[in-house]
């Protein structure tokens, strides 16, 4: 195992001690990045979703983008069960941390993340009645932390948006006296993509 690792360490050491370093601030960013992956939403109830994002680097250190999350449906007997008609769309920005002198771009970023969505609750009906569907609209405003890795054209990203979700049930009925809810949420995600 050590013998196998030796050439790898030598390569890393060569790169570190290279005399003529390229100025990291002059590296050209991608024209666009398209990613797809999975995301969770905590707390109170865990929702799982399939994510699609497209982002455009404004420069090496700042990106803006749009995203769509399509939620997976659940067992109607589960707490706050949702159907697969639930989705959300949003915009985000990423500001990558960078070196004060070196200009090197960190993998870590921070930025705002705003999402609007539609949630369809799917509760079981009484005594064999069809399921009761309750529609709600959601609005999330979050701070998005994340780590984006570039491996050639491949892009791997871990994101951790943290913030607040406001949910408003669209249809009032007997069971929904309080039609608005606020939740503290985290929405960790893992996505893979390509930089064009």
């Amino acid at each position, binding site marked *: 195992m050590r013998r196998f690792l030796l050439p790898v360490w030598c390569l890393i050491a060569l790169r570190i001690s290279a*005399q003529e370093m390229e100025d990291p601030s002059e590296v050209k960013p991608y024209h666009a990045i398209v990613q797809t992956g999975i995301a969770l939403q*905590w707390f109170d109830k865990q929702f799982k979703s399939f994510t699609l994002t497209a982002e455009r680097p404004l420069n090496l250190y700042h990106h803006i983008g749009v995203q769509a999350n399509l939620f997976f449906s659940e067992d109607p007997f589960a707490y706050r069960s949702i159907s697969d008609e639930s989705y959300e769309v949003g915009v985000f920005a990423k500001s990558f941390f960078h070196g004060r*002198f*070196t200009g090197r771009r960190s*993998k*870590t970023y921070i930025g705002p993340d705003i999402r609007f969505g539609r949630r369809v609750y799917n509760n079981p009906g009484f005594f064999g009645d069809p399921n009761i569907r309750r529609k709600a609209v959601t609005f999330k405003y979050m701070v998005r932390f994340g780590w984006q890795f570039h491996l050639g054209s491949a892009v791997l990203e871990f994101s951790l948006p943290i913030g607040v979700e406001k949910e408003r049930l669209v249809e009032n009925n007997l069971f929904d006296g309080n039609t608005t809810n606020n939740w503290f949420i985290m929405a960790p995600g893992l996505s893979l993509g390509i930089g064009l």
Partner: protein
Amino acid sequence: MLQPVFRAAFLLSVCFFCSCIFYQRYPLAYSRLPKINTTNLTFYLLDAAHPRTRVWHLSEAEFLKDKMTGFLVKLDEQDATEVAVVHNRRDARYSRDEVLMFVKPKFVLDMADTATVTIPYTQLEKVEVYEVNAGKSVGVSLFMIFVPIVGVGIISDY
């Protein structure tokens, strides 16, 4: 009643975040030397072969496209070790305005203790600066803050 508690919590959070900033030594490309703002920076020239004992302080530094000029004053061995060695995180943070330029041993072999010199960048072996390791700083902060929250969330069985 709760306001002092919130204030104290806010101050504690600020202190916590400040203590979670990690500095690390990073290589600096020569081509960036003319671009950086040298105000409040301290430049040191180190013999690449003996970085702990042979160190010069560089003042009146001027960085051109392919060379640099400045006035050198040699430090004694104790000060040289202080410059070259970083003992802990706090030491690294205090060194964030220092630029360490490692010169090839051949070039500094017959360099005077005090002199005005012109050094081509080809004679530099490497240049290093202390900068924030953002990944580690953000990662540790988030981990320390949100692990208890996630733990409570999991325990509460929601």
